[in-house]
């Protein structure tokens, strides 16, 4: 009798234990997402900032109760961040590795050259059985070269449209500087983003009525710019537009100061509205106008900047996009009823893709962000200028 009772008690205990474990598992279920970007090499700062922004946003989400999963249980979002070294082959390898895990989506990459190659290995059209491309959703936060998401229906981006930004900027220039007639360009020829954006700047400048007098070219790791700036000086333009990253932007600005090249207006590349430019050549950059999709001008943006700093990063137009993506993913996970279980990974990935593709609008740090049919973002932006070694808001086109 005693033996029978003990057996019953043990069985009841075991069942209770299993139920409790199952409940605990449900309570602690984690939806896995991956991030990837350059965390080594000279553009390491992009990866550091993106990872910090994702972690900051996910902390907010998880501390606020996490996400509601498809079966009604609550789950946390867990992030693992990978280094692609800003190298296309490495980026592809990293994503293949991520795709073999339980991650339901990846956020990245930080470099356009990686995104361009990487999106090429994804399945082009969803449901195309003849296409053996990778069926894994990716949403880019930093890679800024225009139009990359149209490469695959599994690719999405939350990066600003530089086309719209520079179009708006030159329209504003025409109203604020009616006397400027000519422009001279400078471009870092061997960097995909700088080169592509220069094409946008040139087109928009000419469309706004400015006459392009010429262009100086240099490479990412060049150290002297005297020849290019001398040609610029000889052209005597009203506006100088530099499409380059901070290292060479600073080199050119310093050379312009030496050769006393003083245009009426200086315009810079979106990525240069960063602390790097101010650290490298704050004095020479004084007055440079740059369109950007981030500045701490709203309570949400200010809070995001503080949180990202807490995780060792800096909030800028790129990392702010990563921060926004975390909240976009939370909404998609909930609206698409993602399960977050090991046996639903493939289905969850399809749900994430479908959910992202269905979005017409998302919440951004500066306001509402529109989504286009080719999976790109239409983000609000503003113009900043370097003043007294800080970036100050010069104009908000939307306001």
């Amino acid at each position, binding site marked *: 009798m005693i033996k029978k009772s003990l057996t019953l008690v043990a069985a009841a205990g075991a069942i209770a234990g299993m139920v409790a474990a199952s409940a605990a598992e449900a309570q602690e279920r984690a939806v896995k997402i991956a991030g990837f970007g350059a965390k080594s090499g000279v553009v390491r700062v992009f990866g550091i900032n993106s990872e910090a922004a994702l972690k900051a946003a996910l902390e907010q989400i998880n501390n606020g109760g996490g996400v509601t999963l498809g079966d009604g249980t609550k789950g946390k979002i867990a992030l693992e961040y990978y280094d692609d070294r800003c190298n296309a082959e490495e980026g592809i390898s990293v994503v293949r590795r991520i795709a073999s895990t339980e991650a339901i989506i990846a956020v990245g990459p930080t470099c356009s050259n990686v995104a361009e190659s990487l999106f090429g290995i994804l399945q082009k059209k969803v449901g195309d059985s003849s296409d053996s491309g990778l069926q894994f959703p990716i949403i880019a936060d930093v890679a800024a070269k225009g139009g990359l998401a149209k490469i695959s229906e599994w690719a999405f981006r939350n990066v600003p449209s530089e086309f719209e930004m520079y179009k708006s900027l030159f329209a504003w220039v025409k109203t604020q500087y009616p006397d400027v007639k000519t422009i001279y360009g400078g471009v870092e020829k061997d960097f995909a983003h700088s080169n592509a954006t220069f094409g946008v700047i040139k087109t928009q400048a000419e469309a706004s009525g400015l006459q392009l007098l010429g262009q100086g070219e240099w490479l990412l*790791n060049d150290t002297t710019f005297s020849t290019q700036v001398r040609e610029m000086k000889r052209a005597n333009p009203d506006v100088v537009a530099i499409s380059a990253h901070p290292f060479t932007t600073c080199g050119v600005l310093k050379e312009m100061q030496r050769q006393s090249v003083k245009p009426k207006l200086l315009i810079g590349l979106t990525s240069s509205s960063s602390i790097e430019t101010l650290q490298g050549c704050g004095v020479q950059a004084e007055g440079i106008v740059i369109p950007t999709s981030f500045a701490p001008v709203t309570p949400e943006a200010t809070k995001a900047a503080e949180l990202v700093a807490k995780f060792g990063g800096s909030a800028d137009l790129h990392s702010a996009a990563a921060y926004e993506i975390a909240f976009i993913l939370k909404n998609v996970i909930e609206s698409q009823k993602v399960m977050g279980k090991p046996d639903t990974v493939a289905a969850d990935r399809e749900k994430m893709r479908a959910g992202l593709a269905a979005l017409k609008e998302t919440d951004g740090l500066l306001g509402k962000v529109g989504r286009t049919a080719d999976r790109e973002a239409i983000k609000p932006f503003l113009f900043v200028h370097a003043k007294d070694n800080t970036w100050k808001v010069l104009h908000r086109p939307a306001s």
Partner: protein
Amino acid sequence: MSYLDVIDTLQSVADGVLFGATYSLLGIGFTLVFGVMHKINLSYAAASIGAAYASLIVLSVVKAPAIFIFLLAGLAGGIIGFMIYVVCFRFIPQANPLATLMSTVGALLLIDEIIVHATVGIPVPYPALFSDVIVNAGPFTLRGDLMFMFALGCLSMLLLLVLLYRTKLGIATRAVAQQPVAAQLCGISIPRINGLTFVITGVVGGIAGAMIGAAIGVLSPLLSLPLTTKGLIVTVIGGLGSIPGAIIAGLLVGGFENLFQYFRGVTERDLYVMLLLFGFLVFRPGGIFSPAAGRD
């Protein structure tokens, strides 16, 4: 070609020659190590930039004049140079030339990655001397900081030549370079001379790194690889082991680089510099200061 084009051409060449002094210093470092040990130290340019970075540590603690920072860069270069000797050469079998080559490639990547991790890859401002001085000579303008850099480079080269040709250490170094076995039989410690060679070239490299940082105004890990390439080109054109050759070749490469850029644009510039290198390898493989018959 108009008058302005002629002026611009000459100005470009002058700027290139002045900046070429840094290439000369880097070339000297490569060539001296090769002359003494018959080995290539591929981490030399990265170590030079690393030394310039190291000198900034002092600036983060106390405010110091730029010239003091330059000297500190030299000191840091000497220390890093010795460390590279110990790690990449001292205990690695010398019989296999590839072993030390690969170990210095490893050191290059290691130094680069240390810099990237310490600075998050962000360019760091470097103090300059005479950066606001511009000398106007007729239609030409010469940068004060580049002229200072050129003068400092020439002084460093002169001191190095005095060291090599007017001191016992220099005699011992040249003896090891020319006849290592005979030098050893005469009581010269080869490991000591090798180590000192790395310290001396490290000091020169540190100064070169500081001069490059001062000329550009910022230091970036982006500099290591292109400077390694330039240093090697200078060494080959100047003649492996020839210090006067490295000096002349550095200035020559600096001048030609700007000339090619002026006429053919930045995207073709390096192509012509490489063609210049191949031209030397084919027609004058021993470099500038070797007899033309040196081939084979």
